[in-house]
């Protein structure tokens, strides 16, 4: 199949360039406010973890802290697109910080994610596709984060030694390989430094406030992210291969509006804070639109258990109940 045949399309079909332009305006203010909210919430949840050490309250406080940690994927993603902030230096600085905490290599992730955007939902090209003919076991392992961590650990452990998976080489121009390797070595040194400092001072802090919540929270993020393309058409048509999932304001806040995922894929230049406005503009041209993460995952599991049971309440034209009644 030619490269042209598999590259994602659909933006021109929903929006002219003139219509698109007002939505792409970037600011520093929106990103700074959202980052402050996110960082502040993490500090508060970290304080709650500290206060609840040795009690049963550790369970809800750690759960909360872990979920907020998992939501750091949102600023990682937004900064990778350089849409979090208008100022590029600020964008890259925040990007590095969140990537370090979230444990993804910044440059390599940027290229991997760009590849996902180029070849969305085209099997064999899209690095983020769910397993083919997904079984219940595949679903559970995916949600638990086994695929995510296996991939990330390979990046973090092998890249410092110049070993880039040959199946992932097509993400990267040759000229960027030295940078990816150098960056991986810097990250490894930083992590080694944190570990050494923890051992030296006899501190469990990195484990309690970072590592453990980082692992505990990731299944929630995986569960959310299944709805982005799960049970969507396997084709390059961005109007059909990506799902926007309607959800509450709290999730949208910490997810940096990523539930508007179809809008994001169709118009990746649009910063997070304009996605809801864009949704209002193009909602009638999208399908599917999910009626919540629980509903979408219920449908995905339903289709695994009873193949062909149908997409999530969509009618023949692909509309949900909410869209039909609108």
């Amino acid at each position: 199949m030619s490269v042209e045949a598999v590259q994602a399309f659909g933006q021109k079909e929903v929006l002219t360039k003139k219509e698109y332009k007002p939505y792409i305006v970037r600011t520093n203010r929106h990103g700074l406010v959202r980052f402050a909210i996110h960082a502040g919430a993490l500090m508060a949840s970290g304080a709650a973890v500290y206060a609840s050490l040795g009690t049963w309250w550790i369970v809800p406080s750690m759960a909360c802290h872990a979920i907020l940690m998992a939501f750091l994927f949102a600023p990682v993603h937004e900064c990778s697109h350089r849409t979090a902030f208008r100022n590029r230096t600020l964008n890259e600085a925040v990007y590095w910080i969140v990537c370090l905490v979230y444990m993804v290599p910044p440059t390599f992730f940027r290229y991997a994610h760009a590849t996902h955007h180029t070849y969305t939902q085209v099997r064999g090209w899209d690095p983020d596709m769910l397993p083919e003919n997904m079984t219940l076991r595949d679903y559970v392992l995916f949600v638990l984060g086994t695929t995510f961590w296996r991939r990330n650990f390979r990046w973090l452990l092998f890249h410092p030694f110049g070993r880039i998976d040959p199946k992932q080489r097509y993400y990267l121009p040759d000229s960027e390989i030295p940078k990816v390797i150098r960056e991986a070595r810097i990250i490894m040194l930083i992590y080694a430094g944190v570990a050494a400092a923890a051992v030296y001072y006899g501190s469990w802090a990195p484990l309690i406030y970072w590592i453990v919540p980082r692992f505990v929270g990731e299944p929630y993020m995986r569960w959310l992210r299944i709805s982005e393309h799960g049970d969507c058409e396997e084709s390059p048509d961005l109007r059909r291969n990506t799902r926007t999932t309607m959800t509450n304001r709290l999730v949208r806040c910490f997810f940096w509006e990523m539930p508007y995922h179809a809008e994001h894929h169709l118009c990746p230049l649009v910063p997070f804070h304009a996605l809801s406005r864009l949704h209002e503009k193009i909602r009638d041209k999208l399908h599917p639109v999910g009626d919540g993460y629980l509903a979408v995952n219920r449908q995905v599991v339903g289709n695994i258990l009873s193949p062909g049971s149908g997409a999530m309440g969509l009618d023949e034209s692909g509309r949900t109940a909410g869209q039909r009644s609108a």
Partner: protein
Amino acid sequence: MSDWLDVANADDIDEDDVIQVEVEGQVLAIYRLEDGFYATDGICSHAEACLADGFVMDGFIECPLHQGRFEIKTGKARSAPATEDLRTYELKIEGSRILVRLD
């Protein structure tokens, strides 16, 4: 050196905007900035998106697909995932017509 080729009307491009033209089999992007008109390759050197679908921002063209940036006046790739420079082309205005030279 090749001849000057008439590719577009200057009035067809708004300030801080870009259009695509195809001339002798080559796809070019023609830009209008505050200080004049410029021409580069019209296809992104990263993943072959059409640069005319992108947006001019502060003297750069930003690819619509992955937000790679190129400096319009020099064609230089300035941010990943764009790493390979765009070729620039000589351009002149005669009356209201935009002419470019491919060599």
